[in-house]
C-alpha cells in the first residue's frame, strides 16, 4: 500500500471525523513510521480542519513525531524508581554500544534512544518502551542482546517474548481484586432496581473518586443526569500518568469486565449511550486485549443495542464503549484536558466552570471517573451501597489500591480498606528489610505528599492522606535531593505550556534545583524556590502547576539538610563560572593578565 492509500484507509476507518484525530494520527504513524508535513496536509484535508490545528495536535504529544524516526525507538522510563534500579547507567551503556547520543536518530536512520516520563512499570523496572511496546526488568544482559537485535534489524515479533511480559504483582486483595462477580450480574441488578435507585445506591455507598481528588461519585452522576443536553457520555480516565502509579494497568489487565461493567452502570444511571476509555499511550500493549473483552461483552449482550435483551420501551438501554489511546502527555490526566484530547485537540485544560458534568465531551454532559472508581461502582451496583460503606472509614468508604514501588522486598499492588496506616503498608511489603531503614515515602506521586518516619503512623484516607494510589519508598541509601530533582524535571517536561506561571515557573524551579545540584546553590535560592512555588499555586491554570512545587516544599520542610549540605555558604552565587565566562575573550585576545580573570567568589572589600 502506498502512502496516500494508507492515509486514506485510516481516514475512512474513522469516517474523516476530526474529533477522532488522535486515533487517526496514531494509526497513520504506526503505518508510515512518522508524520511527515505532506501526511499532515493530507489528514487536514481529509478531516476538513485547518492544517495548523492538525499540526498543533501532532506537535503537542510526546508520542507523535513530525520528524523522521529510527526504525527502532527505545524510550527509557525515567521515574525515580527506574533510576534506583539502574536505568541511567543502562541507558548510557546502550547509547555507547550503539554510538548514539540520547535523543538523536543514528546516522543510518536505524535507532534512537531517549528517556520518557514514568511508563507505569515501577514494580518491575527498569522499564523501556520499544516502538511503544513495554519491556520490563532491563538488565545489562538484556541491553547487550537488544543492541544485537536492533543491529540485525530483527522485527519486534521475533524478540524474546518474555521481555514483553508484564507482571500483575497483586500482593494483597480485598473486595475489589478478590471479587468473583460474573460479568453482567451488576447490570442485571441495576435493571431490576431501576435508574433512580441505582443512582441512590451509589450515593448511599458514599463512593468518592479514586483519581485522588475524591469528589463524591453519586453527586457527579446525578449532576450529569440532570444537566440539559442532547446526549450524555461516560469517560473512563485510564491516563494513569502520575509517576509511581500502576494500579489501573493491573485493573485493566485482570478485571476489564468489572471496569466496563461499572461504566455501563454509570451509563444506565445517567442515561448515556456512548463511553470512552482514555488509555495512556504507554499502555498501548493493552489495546488488543481490551478490544477483545469489549467484543466478548457485545456478544454476551452486555454492550450494544438493548443491553441484556431489554429494549428502551421496556426499561432497557443501549450503550457501547470504545478505547481511545493517548500519546504521552501527563496533563491529559486532568479531566478537561483529557476531554480536549478525546476531541482530537491539544491536551490543554479548559477553564472550569463549566465542569464536564454539564459541558464535557463535544460540549455534552459527561461523567469522567477513574478506572478504579468504575470498578467499585460495579460492585456497589451488585451488592448495594450499605454493604460497600461497611468497609473503610466514615468519610472514606471502601478500599483503595496502592501501587507500591521503590525500596521494598515485594513491590506491586496492595488493596487495603481505607484507614490503613503507612507503617502497616511498609511492614507488609517488606520495606527496609536488609537495606536499612525507610527514610521517606512519597504518596500519590510527585504531586502528592512526602512523608518522613515520624509520620508513618498516618492513615491512607480522605480524612488524612488522600491518594491516587502511588506509594514510593526510599530507604537510607537514597538521597532525597535526587528524588526531588527527578520530580521537578518531570513537571518542567510535562507542563503543557499554555499558561505562563506554569510554563516558566516549572523551568525556573528546575534551574534552581540544577543550580543547587551543581554546587552553586545558596540560601537565597531556597527562598526563591518558595517564592516561585507561591506564584505557581496562586496563578497556574490547572492542578499541574498548583502541585508542581509540592515535592520541593515538602522536602524543604522535612529534609532540609539534603539541600543545605549542597549549598555554598555565601549569600549568593551565580549559576555559572564567572572566570570561565571570560574564556572566549581570553582566547581571542591572547590575554592572561590579572584583569583577564574573575574571582568566582564575592571579592573581599579593599
Amino acid at each position, binding site marked *: 500500500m502506498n502512502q496516500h492509500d494508507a492515509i486514506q484507509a485510516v481516514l475512512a476507518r474513522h469516517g474523516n471525523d476530526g474529533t477522532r484525530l488522535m486515533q487517526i494520527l496514531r494509526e497513520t504513524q504506526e503505518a508510515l513510521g512518522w508524520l511527515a508535513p505532506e501526511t499532515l496536509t493530507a489528514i487536514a484535508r481529509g478531516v476538513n480542519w485547518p492544517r495548523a490545528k492538525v499540526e498543533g495536535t501532532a506537535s503537542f504529544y510526546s508520542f507523535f513525531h513530525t520528524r523522521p524516526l529510527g526504525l527502532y525507538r527505545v524510550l527509557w522510563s525515567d521515574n525515580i524508581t527506574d533510576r534506583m534500579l539502574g536505568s541511567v547507567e543502562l541507558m548510557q551503556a546502550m547509547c555507547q554500544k550503539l554510538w548514539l547520543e540520547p535523543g538523536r536518530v543514528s546516522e543510518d536512520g536505524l535507532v534512537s534512544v531517549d528517556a520518557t516520563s514514568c511508563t507505569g512499570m515501577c514494580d518491575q523496572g527498569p522499564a523501556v518502551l520499544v516502538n511503544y511496546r513495554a519491556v520490563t526488568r532491563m538488565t545489562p544482559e538484556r541491553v547487550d542482546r537488544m543492541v544485537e537485535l536492533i543491529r540485525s534489524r530483527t522485527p519486534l515479533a521475533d524478540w524474546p517474548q518474555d521481555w514483553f511480559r508484564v507482571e500483575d504483582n497483586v500482593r494483597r486483595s480485598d473486595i475489589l481484586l478478590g471479587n468473583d462477580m460474573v460479568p453482567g450480574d451488576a447490570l442485571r441488578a441495576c435493571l431490576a432496581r431501576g435508574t433512580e435507585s441505582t443512582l441512590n445506591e451509589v450515593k448511599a455507598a458514599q463512593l468518592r473518586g479514586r483519581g485522588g481528588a475524591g469528589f463524591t461519585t453519586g453527586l457527579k452522576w446525578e449532576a450529569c443526569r440532570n444537566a440539559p443536553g442532547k446526549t450524555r457520555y461516560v469517560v473512563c480516565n485510564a491516563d494513569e500518568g502520575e509517576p509511581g502509579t500502576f494500579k489501573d494497568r493491573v485493573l485493566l489487565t485482570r478485571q476489564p469486565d468489572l471496569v466496563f461493567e461499572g461504566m455501563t452502570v454509570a451509563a444506565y444511571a445517567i442515561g448515556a449511550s456512548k463511553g470512552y476509555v482514555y488509555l495512556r499511550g504507554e499502555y498501548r500493549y493493552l489495546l488488543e486485549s481490551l478490544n477483545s473483552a469489549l467484543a466478548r461483552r457485545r456478544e454476551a449482550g452486555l454492550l450494544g443495542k438493548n443491553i441484556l435483551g431489554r429494549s428502551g420501551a421496556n426499561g432497557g438501554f443501549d450503550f457501547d464503549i470504545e478505547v481511545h489511546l493517548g500519546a504521552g502527555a501527563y496533563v491529559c490526566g486532568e479531566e478537561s484536558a483529557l476531554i480536549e484530547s478525546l476531541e482530537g485537540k491539544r491536551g490543554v485544560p479548559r477553564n472550569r466552570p463549566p465542569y464536564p458534568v454539564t459541558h464535557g465531551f463535544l460540549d455534552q454532559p459527561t461523567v469522567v471517573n477513574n478506572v478504579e472508581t468504575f470498578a467499585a461502582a460495579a460492585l456497589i451496583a451488585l451488592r448495594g451501597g450499605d454493604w460497600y460503606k461497611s468497609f473503610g472509614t466514615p468519610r472514606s468508604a471502601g478500599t483503595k489500591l496502592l501501587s507500591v514501588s521503590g525500596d521494598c522486598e515485594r513491590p506491586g499492588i496492595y488493596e487495603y480498606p481505607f484507614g490503613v496506616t503507612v507503617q502497616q503498608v511498609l511492614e507488609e511489603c517488606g520495606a527496609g528489610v536488609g537495606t536499612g531503614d525507610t527514610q521517606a515515602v512519597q504518596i500519590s506521586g510527585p504531586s502528592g505528599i512526602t512523608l518522613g518516619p515520624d509520620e508513618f503512623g498516618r492513615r491512607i484516607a480522605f480524612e488524612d492522606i488522600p491518594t491516587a494510589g502511588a506509594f514510593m519508598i526510599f530507604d537510607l541509601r537514597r538521597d532525597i535531593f535526587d528524588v526531588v530533582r527527578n520530580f521537578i524535571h518531570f513537571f518542567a517536561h510535562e507542563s503543557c505550556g499554555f499558561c505562563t506561571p506554569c510554563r516558566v515557573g516549572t523551568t525556573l524551579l528546575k534551574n534552581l534545583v540544577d543550580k543547587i545540584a551543581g554546587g552553586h546553590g545558596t540560601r537565597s535560592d531556597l527562598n526563591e524556590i518558595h517564592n516561585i512555588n507561591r506564584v505557581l499555586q496562586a496563578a497556574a491554570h490547572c492542578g499541574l502547576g498548583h502541585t508542581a512545587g509540592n515535592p520541593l516544599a515538602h522536602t524543604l520542610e522535612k529534609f532540609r539538610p539534603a539541600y543545605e549540605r549542597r549549598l555554598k555558604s555565601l549569600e*549568593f552565587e551565580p549559576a555559572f563560572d564567572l572566570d570561565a565566562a571570560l574564556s572566549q575573550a581570553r582566547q581571542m*585576545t591572547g590575554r592572561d593578565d590579572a584583569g583577564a580573570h574573575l574571582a568566582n567568589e*564575592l571579592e573581599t572589600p579593599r
Partner: protein
Amino acid sequence: MNAPLPRRKLRVATTSLAGCFGCHMSFLDIDERLLDLLELVEFDRSPLTDIKHCGTRGPCDIGIIEGGVCNAENVHVLQEFRRNCKILVALGACAVNGGLPAQRNHLDLRDILATVYQTEAGLAQGTQIPNDPELPLPLNQVHPIHEVVKVDYFLPGCPPPADAIWKFLTDLIAGRTPQLGHGLIHYD
C-alpha cells in the same frame, strides 16, 4: 509624603553597567522632585556625584543598577555595589533581563570578535582584536544582574517612567514595600 521621615538621610549609590544611561535620564525626569529627594537621601557613588567607588564614605542603604553585565568590569562594579549596599535594585529592562545588549547571546563571542576586528570588509591595515590590559574583557554572554549577585527589587521598563522611579524610591525610603499601581509598570 505622609510617612514619618527617617532619622538620617539614606545613602544612595547608582551606576550604569551595560546600559545606555536612559534609565538615569528617566530618573532625572522626576524634575523638581529631585530637590525633595535630596531632603531624604544623600548620593554616594553615582554619575551625579562622580564619586568613583561606593563604600568609601560608609555603607550605602540603596544601590540602583542600570544595565546588564557584559564584561569583567561590570562584574567588579556590581560586586562592589552588592558588598556595600543593603538594598540592591535592578532598574530597567537591561538590568532585569539583559535587554538589548543580550541580543548578542545567540552568537558566539569568538565569531563576533573575529567578524568585527578581523574579517569585516573595510578594516584598516593591521587591525587586530584589542588586547590592552586596560580594557575589560567581554563575557561569553550578557547576563541580567540577578544572575551574578542577589538582587532585592526589580523595576522593569525601557526606561521605567520617572513617576514609577519616584513612587518606587519614596516607598522604599518610607519603609513600605514598593507597589507600582496601574500605569507605572511597563515592560517596553
